[in-house]
């Protein structure tokens, strides 16, 4: 299990929880687990999110590993100019 911190806007779907625990080995697993538990969160997750693992930002990597002690944060998709 890994603790996943989610941004405020999505907390409306978790009953206000800022951090939830999911069973996942990589970023794809994190997204899948969140979507399965909170179907209303799915559109936001599928619309594209960025993820941070231990302070490093990922935008497109399904297979990046997460460990039980990883700091995982789900963020809106980072954009740039």
């Amino acid at each position: 299990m890994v603790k996943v911190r989610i941004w405020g806007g999505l907390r409306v779907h978790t009953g206000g929880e800022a951090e939830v625990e999911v069973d996942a080995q990589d970023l794809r697993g994190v997204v899948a687990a969140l979507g399965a538990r909170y179907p209303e969160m799915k559109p936001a997750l599928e619309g594209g999110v960025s993820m941070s693992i231990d302070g490093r930002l990922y935008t497109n990597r399904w297979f990046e590993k997460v460990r039980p002690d990883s700091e995982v944060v789900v963020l809106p998709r980072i954009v740039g100019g």
Partner: protein
Amino acid sequence: MPKDIATRTFKQVGTRPLRPDGIEKVTGRARFGADFSLPGMLVGKILRSPHAHARILRIDTSAAAALPGVKAIVTAKDFPEADDGLHDIRMNVMAREKALYDGHAVAAVAAVSAAVAREALRLIRVDYEVLPHVTDVDEAMKPTAPILHPHMVTAHESPEAKRPTNVAGKYEFGHGDPEAGFRKADHVVARTFKVEAAHQGYIEPHACVANITSDGQGDLWCCTQGHFMVRAISAGLNGMDLSKLRVTASEIGGGFGGKTTVYIEPVAVALSRKAGKPVKIVMTRDEVFRATGPTHSASIDVKIGATKDGRITGAFAELRYQGGAFPGSLADMGAMAAFACYDLENVRSIGWDVVTNRPKLAAYRAPSAPAVCFAVESVIDELARKMGMDPIDFRLKNAAREGTLSSYGPTYQAIGLEATLRALKAHPHYKAPLKPGQGRGVACGFWFNFGGQTCTSLNIGLDGTVALSVGTPDIGGSRASMCLMAAEELGIPYDKVRCIVADTASLGYNDVTDGSRVTFSSGLATITAARNAIKVMCARAAAIWGIPEDAVEWVDGHARPTGPNAGNFPPLSLADIAAQSHQTGGPIAGHCEVTAEGAGVSFGAHLADVEVDRETGAVKVLRYTVAQDAGKAVHPAYVEGQYQGGAVQGIGWALNEEYVYGKDGRLQNPGFLDYRIPVCSDLPMIDTLILEIPNPGHPYGVRGVGETPIVPPMATIANAIASATGVRMTHVPMSPPRVLKALSEA
């Protein structure tokens, strides 16, 4: 972190060679978007709504179609709806049921000349039902506001809020309890700020040439920050197969985020296919201002409390951003960036994404961060003044550092904010004397930066020179940086490498040139491609020598035998190996396809001296210094250029740049005369301090540098004005009428 980054000495990276595209650009031979032509080419022009908000009842193109010389006309009907994720952009490229802003495209023609095309536009009759409009963000949020999209509800908001609204989304970040933090504070400052929308203001208007045949194949040339993105959207909107549309990026005359999307390209494709001829569309400046992406405009509340010894106890910000007629004002990014510079126990930021009757927002350099930085850094400055603390010391005391839990969620790795602030404090500028009427301001800023999908190909010629193909348009000298990194890695001279931006058929997909990503991502891919080519060359040398591949190493541009059993062979240079390549297994190339991650966040701090004319409200910038962490400056002259250019764009926004809408919802200043970007005589030299705190996510330690420089200037100038006058400006731009009004009310 690769062990060698911090200690590695570079031979070429960090030098300042001339750029490979330089001579073309100083002789007028470089071909920008509008410089392409094809035989038999038609001129395309677009009819735009004069109304801010209107239902389109009927479009009658019959008279235009009958005009001799008109070869094709398209309207929204030519871009049928599909469930393909392109809904908003399809509607922005060509208005459907409603025109949503002054300048929204409603029809387009292709004709034998510009004059005929213009005449044809006049002959297209559009019946509008004019609707009430709204262009201000606070007005648009009111329950009584005209609604742009009847089906829009607020995303990420509790179910009871689900009624038609202009509020597309709510985003919230932070940790702790700001209210509890304020109770612990000795000083609390709360203010509301307004920031008007700015335009990227690239000098080159959007331009493209499409040449599409009736079977849905063809070519598109255009000025863009991302030709793969142009291909995806243009093919998507026209129902074409991706691979049948080849897009070639021309030289690009500035973008700053404004060319990360499409406006005219799908229209040119549609017209060309319909007309059976090449079609060129070039926007006028008026169209650029009315119809392409400016930034959000914003209304922001900030409240920060601190103890008298200078420790921030609580911080709160609420951001209301309008991003034009479609969701995506980037209030989410703004809310994330709001307090990213600080190590805070109690922090919350809320962002509201709002739609109004204005053109759809496009990214502009660190999109969303400058406005909120203006608000937050103004309050930080006011607090420092209140407690009599040096503004840099106050920031240092609360600065985010490695291990800080950021306000937006992740815990920071190694970051350069403290070093940047210290460098600025040690700079002679910080201690230089000021005259009466002058003031000095400081502010710091943050941007995320990212990597993204990247594909690079490096081909070694028989003569030992290198042709490098990247898929990221060069917007500010990146080809020079790519050549430097390839040369460094291969151990050959810089001028033995030529870098080009390859078309969409010649390379795998590349994300857009944005997010300060190119030197980082394409650089990483170039280094990897070079390393892959080196592997091939080592294998060839091993075969030539008849020794195992792992007994060959690459040093200073040569393959050398290494290890106890390798034998004693004279080293083979890259040119030696290349010259024999046709006999040793064929062409030598290195490729890299990667999703680059680990771009590393970026911090900068700016320092400005200004003089305020108290009788007219005019603000003159006397001196300006930028300090920013570059990770590693590959070509320092172009890093300085990014710092200087970004700072000056920020200064322009701070002082004069704004979208002015009339009561009729029409843009009042769609030209460079009244949309006032800084001119040469407005400015001093811009001093730069490049810090190099290596990014562990890049083989050379590179961090993106392009965006962060626009983040601090508005706050820096505001703080300098406060220092000069004692008056706190809360509305950007701080134009003379606003400054004079604030002075007279003080």
